[in-house]
């Protein structure tokens, strides 16, 4: 532990000239938090390290951002989360996918950006995990990618309809367990239950630490900014391929945050709940900080941080968590308790729903949820953005600015 408490990053250490930087430049810049700086380094080198692991003869798979994470870790495989490829993907990747696969322009930009990147990365590793119930465009896209030589395992997860419980819920979990056993076998040949149990306990421990980071940020929001917490979140399951180091960085960050909180710095920053996708339109996240706000909860994806039930058999625990944590693609209203909890815990003043233009499920989710929160008098805003890196649309910036003005 260092002798003096760290300085708040957002107000003191982050120079204003960073406002116009690209996301990559922003990640390269030093934040004032040693732990965050290192997490940014891990994010920036993540894909490159996956490639190196592959070249060194290690098993590497595109996957690991979801509840497949403990299974991948247990199979001694490096998880390379394919949405992270989005950090590499700009409009050129989208155009490549549109051209090579003749995908319609209106298709979700996340899918196109990923496909473009995967096409460029064809000579590298080719194993990929698809969680079937998550997204229809990806389902179709991955079928097409098979023709490019990709070895794709589709985990045919059940969709959890709204309000399902009891016997039918158990039936969904039974099916998910069978499918996840298939995944474990595909990954490693023999399924090692003891090892999976150990990974589940490790991830539960990590998730608790991620939650602690976020709680500390809510208590004292001036130390780290919005993009910083996003990258802490992002690594929660895949750990940027270095589980030990990632956990050590969480410990270090918690220490930094606790020492900053001990200074009792008053903050006027306005907490907002973010619900939906986490695209690469860096400028939107930055805008929260610039407008004296911050994202206090990354909900929906946050469902992935639910603890695995250690009283269940390990594979059952993963299946159970998968069905419960279906998030966006599950029943719309099943997300309400999580959002309400996030608002209550963080004292957030509103919700921003964010989906990608062309997303096949989020739009109705958002309409249903927005209706509910309107009735509760909680302000909300729906934004349709794009996944690939680049500046956010002027329209989204204007709308977000107006929203932040309103909630303040």
């Amino acid at each position, binding site marked *: 532990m260092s002798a003096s408490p760290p300085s708040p990053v957002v107000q003191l250490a982050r120079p204003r000239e960073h406002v116009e930087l690209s996301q990559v430049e922003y990640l390269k810049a030093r934040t004032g938090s040693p732990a965050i700086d290192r997490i940014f380094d891990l994010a920036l080198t993540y894909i490159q390290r996956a490639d190196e692991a592959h070249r060194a003869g290690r098993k590497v798979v595109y996957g690991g951002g979801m509840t497949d994470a403990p299974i991948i870790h247990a199979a001694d495989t490096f998880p390379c989360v394919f949405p992270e490829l989005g950090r590499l993907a700009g409009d050129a990747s989208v155009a490549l996918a549109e051209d090579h*696969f*003749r*995908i*319609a322009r*209106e*298709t*979700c930009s996340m*899918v196109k950006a990923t496909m473009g990147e995967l096409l460029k990365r064809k000579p590298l590793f080719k194993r990929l995990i698809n969680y*079937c*119930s998550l*997204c*229809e*465009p990806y*389902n*179709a*896209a991955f*079928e*097409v990618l*098979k*023709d490019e030589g990709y070895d794709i395992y*589709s985990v*045919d997860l*059940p*969709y959890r*309809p*709204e309000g399902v419980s009891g016997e*039918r819920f158990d*039936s*969904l979990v*039974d*099916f998910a367990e*069978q*499918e996840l056993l*298939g995944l474990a076998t595909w990954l490693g040949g023999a399924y090692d239950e003891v090892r999976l149990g150990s990974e589940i306990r490790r991830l539960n421990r990590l998730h608790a630490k991620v939650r602690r980071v976020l709680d500390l940020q809510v208590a004292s929001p001036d130390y780290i900014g919005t993009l910083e917490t996003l990258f802490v979140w992002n690594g929660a399951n895949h750990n940027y391929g270095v589980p030990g180091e990632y956990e050590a960085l969480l410990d270090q960050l918690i220490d930094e945050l606790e020492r900053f909180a001990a200074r009792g710095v008053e903050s006027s920053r306005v907490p907002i709940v973010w619900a939906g996708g986490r695209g690469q339109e860096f400028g939107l996240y930055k805008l929260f900080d610039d407008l004296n706000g911050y994202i206090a909860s990354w909900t929906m994806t946050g469902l992935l941080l639910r603890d695995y039930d250690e009283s269940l058999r390990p594979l059952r625990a993963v299946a159970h968590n998968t069905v419960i944590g279906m998030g966006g*693609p599950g*029943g*719309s*209203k099943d997300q309400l308790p999580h959002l309400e909890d996030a608002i209550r815990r963080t004292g957030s003043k509103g919700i921003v729903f964010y989906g990608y*233009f*062309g*997303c*096949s*499920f989020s*739009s*109705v*989710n958002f*309409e*249903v949820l927005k*209706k509910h929160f309107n009735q509760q008098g909680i302000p909300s805003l729906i934004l*349709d953005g794009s996944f690939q890196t680049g500046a956010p649309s002027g329209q989204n910036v204007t709308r977000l600015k107006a929203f932040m003005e309103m909630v303040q």
Partner: protein
Amino acid sequence: MRGDGGVQPKRAGYFCVYTPVELLAAAGATPVRLFKGGDANTVNSGEVHTRSFFCQFAQYSVGAFREADPLYRSVDKLYHFNTCDQMKKAVEAIGEFFDVPYRMLCLPRERSRPAAREFMRREVEFMQRDVEELTGNRVSEAALGEAIAAYNRARRWLKAISELRKLDDPPLTGGDYLELVKAFYYLPVDKAVAHFEKLHARLSEEPPTVERPLRVMVSGGIVADGDDRLVELLEDELGTRIVVEDHCTGLRPFYQEIPEDLPPLHALADGYLDSAPCARMKPLSERLDFTERLAREYRVDAIVYVSLKFCSCYAITGNAFSKRFEKLGIPVLEISSDYSESDLGQLRTRVGAFLELLRKGETDVRVPA
């Protein structure tokens, strides 16, 4: 109440052909397939609760409830097997914004896996309990077996009628065939069967001609009841003959039958999973194999592949589809369609140019969307 004083049977609405109608019928409900489309105003109405980038059929379906279409509003409950994201979410929107009760069920994608079979059986069982609750009638094995047999008879006749289109000059048009498909979905099954049987007999007696119009297959996403413009363009304006449909409102759902030698619930689960696959099912290769089989059986000269704008399943896999048939030497025209009127001229030009090339014998054409 019915006009005769009896109790009106419950009306069970559904959108997708993976819904086991036999179960609805065996419980005494009236199955109503909701597959209208083609009207831009209804789409616009549905957009209020969805988004501009939502599939037009899904938007139409929401819009039809919003516009209080009598057929749509007549249903007591919706049953929806989770086929694609957008229809799943459309059903949720209908439930949320128009207070229509619905039951969502799961449909596995990896249909050949044993776990998928078992799971589908359990989902069909859950559906049975739900339908029994809706109608107040217990579904007996015997009643379900009878319903399976009745719907199989209808499928058999529709397939038999379709096979008459294998003749050089088919005795019915593609447009005619779509009308028969509507009869399957809108009439009581026994009435439909009687109608099909008579029609088959009459069409079988049509004297053969020496003509051989250009034979076209229409493949892709749903061609809704009311979305007539492509069929009219191909057949009425441009003189081709649609001899087979590889979509869910044409021949495809009638190509295979539900097994009658298995316990009924088991038969429904297996039968629907084994039915001719749509683009949502995995692997894609099985769907393409099926289309190829149809193309060979019906000796098609060309394929018009239609995907509705914002349809993830058919739009993204369109290129893989075209490449498969390119290798087989069957020209494909890919069309991205919607329910607006504004692009009819453009559509006419594209389809016309494609057919002109075909007629000139330049059969290696492939005109992308």
